[in-house]
């Protein structure tokens, strides 16, 4: 069960650095049964690789002692997991009631407009150059500072259209090697 990553054939092309390997093992050890750590392991993998590839899912399955299918069904159920790489700058805008009343849908439309994406589409959309992903998400539990959004891990409260424009500019002028978070 807890054999090294070579246990699954496809995992061969996956490079898991020792620090990640150790973090995963440490996570799994906290649970009464390894499978319990599934979400934490998937978060760790997604944080590292940016998305969950089939190889990553197989690797996780081997670690958790379950079939790859049983990990895949988590990756496809939970909205935070992705099976494709997102844009380098990932905007998540709250669309739920208090934020919508404060203009969040207009912010989303503005972002889409500026980036050439479809304002009517609520799900994740990525620009052709792979720089930006924009999506609407549900209530982020900060309704008193509506409208709110994430740009990567930066949380922005009481967001204004001008601020959103500035954020796009900053992202566009970010040096290529920075990760933007």
């Amino acid at each position, binding site marked *: 069960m807890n054999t090294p990553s070579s246990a699954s054939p496809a995992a061969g092309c996956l490079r898991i650095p020792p620090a990640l390997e150790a973090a995963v093992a440490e996570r799994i050890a906290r649970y009464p*049964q390894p*499978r319990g750590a599934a979400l934490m392991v998937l978060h760790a993998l997604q944080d590292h690789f940016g998305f969950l590839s089939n190889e990553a899912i197989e690797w996780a399955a081997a670690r958790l002692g379950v079939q790859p299918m049983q990990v895949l069904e988590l990756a496809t159920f939970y909205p*935070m997991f992705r099976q494709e790489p997102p844009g380098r700058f990932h905007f998540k805008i709250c669309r*739920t009631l208090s934020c919508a009343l404060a203009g969040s849908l207009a912010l989303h439309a503005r972002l889409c407009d500026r980036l050439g994406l479809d304002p009517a589409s609520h799900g994740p959309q990525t620009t052709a150059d792979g720089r930006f992903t924009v999506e609407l998400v549900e*209530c982020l539990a900060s309704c*008193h500072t509506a409208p709110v959004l994430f740009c990567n891990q930066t949380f922005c409260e009481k967001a204004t259209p001008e601020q959103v424009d500035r954020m796009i500019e900053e992202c566009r002028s970010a040096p290529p090697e920075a990760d933007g978070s």
Partner: protein
Amino acid sequence: MPNMIQERRIILEHLDRAGYTPDLGCYRRHGGYATFERCLALEPAATPEGQTLSGPEQIRLEVRRSGLRGRGGAGFPCGVKWSFVNLDSDRPIYLICNADESEPGTFKDRQIIHKDPHQLIEGILIAAYANRVHQAFIYIRGEFIEGARILDRALDEARGAGLLGRDILGRGYDLEICVHRGAGAYICGEETGLIESLEGRRPYPRIKPPYYPAVLGLYQCPTIVNNVETLCAVKHVAAMGGNEYAKLGVPGDPGTRIVCVSGQVRRPGYFEIEIGKATLGQLIHDLAGGLHPGRSLKAVIPGGSSAKVLRAGEKYKLKFARPDGKEIEREAALLDLPYDSASLAAAGSMCGSGAIVVLDDSASAVEALANIAEFYAHESCGQCTPCREGSLWMHKILQRILRRQGRPADVDNLERIAHNIPGGRTVCAFGEACSWPVQSFVAKFGDEFRQMTAPPP
């Protein structure tokens, strides 16, 4: 202004004060962990009836006496829930702190986690010690990335200070607390869905009976699931004593609770009040700054997005106990409703998760409901046909109405669908949660819906 209502901050006492920081040193300087230390040192004590109660039994008794109700949404009495746990079982007993906080309009748990994580940890320690728990989890929603980091840091500090781990404070008690992150699915807030998720499965809720967590929970073991705010309240019950705590609030709904007010008000925010001692009007006007200039009130969603909407101008019949014990009935307008479970129930709604969303006359009832319906269509776990299909149909019909492509029969269809989802046809209470807004909005703002679906002249 005379009679302005004041907050009654107990859980939130320190957390917004200048200089208050979320680290252990600051928490300790403000008396933190003293209650837990006292709990851990409780000697067996004799009751007037001649029974001897262990320390943990005394804590459980205080929580039962307090009458504290859960703050996660269902409002179930905490002490009663704990009493369902079989403490003599040879299986481990688990405690899960529900920090999934995903009910639209609710944002109190995040504040506690960010600004006073040790208060939550102390509450978990007390609840765990009282119920023979040695492994606890904090299930925190995936989007609270910073919150999870703050909790991990706080837990490390507590471990370093001997407050967590093996042989806590040298008194022979062991407890581990593990922070577990969700990944963006609302249904993980439902306690049995949460448990499935924590076992590494899709969060499909389990059917009750038999899967009441206190009886058959995590890994089929007895499991206590309590909300973040409930566990903080437990700390204060332990500090004050159950009878003292019960003097706050109103009979049947004691204590304080953190009410989140958002939507179209001037100063949206979170306010801790004595339950039943502030009215909706005082919450909205005195605490949340009232409506924007020139606006009038249209509606209030009083307890999270699933609570039935209340329309401005409605009158409700409330029952009051007179000092001599006799019950009298009084009529109350929307803004005169005291914020407590019984009053909100008499108005046909609920306090739910303590989240008030205010709509003024600039808001469209159809748009507001369509927004809520989209949430539920997105978040249904899909396990039960009435919920999966019904929530999606309601969402699609409402989108059609918004695009002005609605048909006159759509209003009746919405009512019929919303009527056919709840009532024991689904595994979990999400069925009710997605139906109540549709039922209430259509019943109360039917004219707006009909106007938007009328055939063009």
